[in-house]
């Protein structure tokens, strides 16, 4: 199952991915990150259609999609 990995170090909370996710499975996290902003989080990974809209629109390359069983760590 694919994993959608949000890198909260890079995410600046611009919300563009939320706007363009056709499955509406992205929302802003209620938890403030160490950057002092609310990053994005995934509500239901199983609904991801793999359209990559979030990845394409993200200005900070803060979203990675890892295929497979999700047990590997994402590349740094």
């Amino acid at each position, binding site marked *: 199952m*694919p994993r959608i990995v949000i890198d909260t*170090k*890079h995410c*600046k*909370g*611009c*919300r*563009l991915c939320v*706007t*363009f996710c056709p499955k509406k499975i992205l929302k802003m996290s209620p938890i403030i990150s160490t950057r002092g*902003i609310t990053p994005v989080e995934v509500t239901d990974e199983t609904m*991801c259609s*793999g*359209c*990559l*809209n979030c*990845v*394409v*629109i*993200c*200005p*900070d*390359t803060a*979203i*990675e*999609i*890892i*295929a497979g069983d999700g047990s590997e760590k*994402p*590349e*740094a």
Partner: protein
Amino acid sequence: MIREYRRPAALEDAVTHYCPGCGHGIVHRLIAEIIDEMDLAGRTIGIAPVGCAVLAYDYFKFDVCEAPHGRTPAVATGIKRARPECLVFSYQGDGDLAAIGTAEIIHTANRGENISVIFVNNAVYGMTGGQMAPTTPDGVKTTTSPRGRDPLNEGHPIKVAELLANFERVVYSTRVSLSSPKNVREARRAIKKTFQTQLDRRGFSIVEILSPCPTYWHMAPEAALKYIDEVMAKVFPPGVFRDWEK
């Protein structure tokens, strides 16, 4: 089947200084993706402008040269003539290219220097705090056009992609937009084409990219993308103005 997506190898892991929702981050990523795809990192030399992207060299994993404001195409000329086997691209904003660097871009284009120009047009001077740019649309308020851009005093916005398409040695001139994932994908195709054009030694090519500046447009990032569609794209229509393929 879910496709994988990983941070491009040609993009440094550094957190950029760009504002949330800034178009530079998207364009940097597209360039890095294409360089990975075409396996060009080992022979790419980028030229960074003066403007918000002045620190672009901190975000790419290949050789980059700083340029004085506006002189980016001249520096690119010097580099490409010295290292013709390298992929040489100049990366410029609207002040760098269309104000102080007007002579350099026109003559570099006219000579048909075999380089790729990535022109990020967000119609405002971001780095210095939101002043009017040569591409600011009529009527728009900025810190140096507080009553709105007045064509009688300031002239109309300059349409660079159309202007450069007039020169015979310009083989590809196009304008794209970052206002949606669909348009970003189109921008990606255009950037890839300008790099391939150079590798094929066809001559000068430029991609003008309508890019959001949420901070100095005083709007949230998603509103900024709408502004590109509703206002910017009317002043600067996306399209292809010169294409060696046609």
